[in-house]
């Protein structure tokens, strides 16, 4: 018998169990139903979270970098020090300090 006939005969034993086929049909039906109507965002987010979507580490790292960069660009202003305000505060500072004579100070 030639090699391809032998291998063909051997692989003919490979098959899905009927239970696995039934499960597959159910999953396909669910997928079709899901794809038919546009589901609301929370439901889609929940599906994504409970699903098994694979994301490459490089893509994830790049995405996180982009998000960090975007947030920094948007909110970095709140960390900026206005020199004029700082100077005014520094000048006012000593007058507003309340001297504590009692208690323990940790330096």
């Amino acid at each position: 018998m030639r090699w391809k006939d032998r291998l063909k005969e051997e692989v003919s034993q490979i098959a899905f169990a009927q239970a696995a086929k039934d499960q597959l049909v159910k999953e396909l039906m669910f997928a079709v139903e899901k794809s038919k109507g546009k589901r609301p965002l929370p439901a889609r987010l929940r599906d994504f979270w409970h699903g098994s979507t694979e994301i490459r580490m490089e893509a994830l790292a790049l995405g996180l970098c982009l998000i960090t960069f975007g947030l920094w660009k948007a909110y970095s202003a709140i960390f900026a020090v206005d020199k004029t305000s700082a100077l005014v505060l520094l000048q006012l500072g000593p007058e507003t300090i309340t001297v504590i004579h009692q208690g323990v100070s940790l330096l």
Partner: protein
Amino acid sequence: MEPLDALRAGEPEALNWLVNTYADRLLRAAALILGDGHAAEDAVQESLMDAVLNLPHFRGDSSLYTWLYAILVRRCRHQQKWLRRVRGVDVVPKGDLAQNPVQSTESIALRSALALLPQKYREVVVLFYFADLTIAEIAELLRVPQGTVKNRLHRARARLKDILGEDE
């Protein structure tokens, strides 16, 4: 209703027909390409899912059978890449494609010989000999010229002949 329309509509009977007609054939091809029963099952399940969800884009230029194999080959490549990334080494199929505890030395040699072929050769051998696709169909689904398919087939046969010491 046409079978394709019924499939697009997600009718249980049509999906049942799809799975019962093609799942085992696809599984055999995937098992031969990947050499791993579990990876092959995953590849087939994902291929059928892709097929059903992408049926609206299926133009019908090729037969459903050929189209399913095209999806399967892409999935097998993806699976191979994923295994390579996860295991950190180049994955060589082990040839443990059947859950058959009794394996003759001959059958192990046969599987090993197939597993030793480069993936692109293994794909054409499986599609030509086991999926019974024509050279033209294989060329179309692999998106390569027919000459390339013939060449790969010729080289694969020569290598198998060398390994097994017999013709075809």
